[in-house]
């Protein structure tokens, strides 16, 4: 303990204490934080129950009747109208943790903390789908990657998706803080619904553009990229020449310059 006391005036002491405090706080929170309820059996579509859930949880941004709300400052909206977005849009946004949105940022990020049970999401989806016809949630067979053709899917992906999501689905930046997220470890159903509904900045790729077979091929391609693994090691995010170049310039050349300086020094 004496050794510890002797170091209390060390310049790094405050930073170390802060880090320890933050770590303990985070650990304590994750121990007592409420866990999302376990998924139960999906009940029959209960539109009125969904409406109640909607009004309690979504209406502050999307309006009491899902008509959308303005923030009052200029053209900015708190939330768009949900008439016609369909059950697929609700299921995608809520089951990937994007909605309810945590803060009004440029883009709702994907999150592992899903606020609602599958049952509740199904009810809210049913309510929103009852407002106006829209895309429905796809069946298991429509998103089964083993039934798709990854080669054809790769061709479609490179023309329609790769400019934003990167040719291997690693994601990339858009304008003003928005970004195309990584497509690795995304459930096949969510990939399908994202193409179908065009969430946030993403354009819509509905069945008149890429039919359901084409969508399944794209899912098969993405899953084959995922399964391919990374035999070379140290993928650097798979973003391509930018990260690789930066790594080579900073670490590779930095190391070489250091060695050159050391070699140039006289011995002894």
């Amino acid at each position, binding site marked *: 303990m004496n050794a510890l006391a002797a170091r209390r005036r060390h310049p790094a002491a405050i930073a170390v204490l802060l880090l320890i405090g933050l770590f303990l706080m985070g650990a304590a929170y994750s121990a007592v934080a409420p866990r999302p309820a376990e998924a139960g059996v999906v009940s029959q579509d209960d539109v009125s129950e969904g409406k109640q859930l909607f009004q309690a949880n979504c209406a502050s941004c999307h309006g009491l009747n899902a008509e959308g709300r303005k923030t009052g400052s200029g053209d900015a909206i708190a939330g768009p109208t949900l008439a016609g977005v369909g059950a697929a849009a609700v299921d995608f946004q809520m089951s990937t943790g994007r909605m309810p949105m945590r803060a009004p940022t440029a883009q709702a990020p994907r999150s592992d903390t899903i606020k609602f049970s599958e049952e509740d999401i199904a009810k809210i989806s049913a309510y929103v789908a009852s407002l106006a016809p829209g895309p429905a949630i796809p069946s298991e067979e429509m998103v089964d990657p083993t039934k798709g053709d990854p080669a054809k899917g790769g061709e479609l992906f490179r023309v329609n998706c790769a400019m934003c999501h990167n040719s291997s689905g690693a994601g990339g930046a858009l*304008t003003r803080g928005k970004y195309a997220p990584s497509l690795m470890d995304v459930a096949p159903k969510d990939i399908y619904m994202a193409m179908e509904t065009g969430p946030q*900045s993403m354009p*819509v790729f509905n069945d*008149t553009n890429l039919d359901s077979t084409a969508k399944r091929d794209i899912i098969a391609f993405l899953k084959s990229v995922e399964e391919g693994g*990374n035999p070379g090691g140290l993928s650097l995010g798979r973003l391509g020449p930018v990260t690789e170049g930066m790594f080579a310039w900073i670490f590779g050349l930095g190391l070489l310059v250091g060695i050159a300086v050391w*070699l140039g020094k006289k011995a002894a």
Partner: protein
Amino acid sequence: MNDQDITAAEGFGKDAVRLDEGHVVGQGGIPDRFENPGLPPHVPRGADLSEAAAKRAEKQVAGLFTLSILGTVLFVLAYFLVDIRTMAYLPGIGDMSLQHVLLGVGMGLALLGIGLGAVHWAKTLMPDEEVVEMRHPMRSSDADRDEVVRIMKEEGGKAQLSRRPLLKYTLGGAMSLFALPVLLPVLGGLGPMPQKSMSLTFWNGGPSGPGEEPAFTPMRLMRDPENTAIKASDVTIGSVFHVLPEGLLDLEHGVLEEKAKAAVLLMRLDPSDIKSQKELDWGHQGIVAYSKICTHVGCPVGLYEQGTHHLLCPCHQSTFDVTDDCKVIFGPAKRPLPQLKITVDDEGYLVSAQPFREAVGPSFWERG
């Protein structure tokens, strides 16, 4: 430093102005010339002084060379004995092929052992006293120079070059003309002149070769890569289609050259969002088609944000506003993306109404 140097240094300080005297016009304190301080004295290393230390250094260098030998052996063994599909977990990197790791480590050790061994050898055992070697004069001796002049004059004169000017002129002509066969392939290797091919695209009516302009025929807009025609009703609001002209993908050759100029992006916006009347007139009920080739350096501009209607080029972040005739709102591009005028045919398919009115893609010298 010897005594003489120290006196010179003190003499230098004597006339200099001190800093605490305020502004005083200096008398100049710089000596006429600086003495060469010479090389610092040689500091002997451990291995220079003790035979035991030298022996130790020898063993270290030999050890590094042995490490290199072991690295090469590891490389060869890994190459033949480890299956390339075997994966191994490495902390900080994750799962990767075990053979790749061992090949890399083996080759790394093989090269590093030789390099480090040589450096350690040089730093411990090789002589490290600095030696100055004076430069020799470059001039040849006078006798040699006179001899060269004599040979040029007397022996060269026997070739009769100055007596027979016809030889001189024809040789000169032959030598200078011989540069042409060297230059011609260089110029010819730049390929044929592009002529009109940079201003035309497949939308003009077919393959846009360097020669004459093909006659315009309306072409259907086809999905890339499926090569299927698009109905106006297929394009819903918020959709984006990647489009090629009808027939381009059926070409026997030159597909990529044509694709690089003719690629088009098709979007549908709410017509009330569109600010430009020309954009509305050249589209069809809010469906608009723009060249996908960036006017900066020709990257495919494919990043359409359906919320903001911004089109972003991934190469240099040029951003185009689709609601305002694709004007540049950010980035290095200088001109808006050219719009393709479209309409619908009798069967409801989208067709081009006229070719691009200006050259697509980046600026070039003769761009009209």
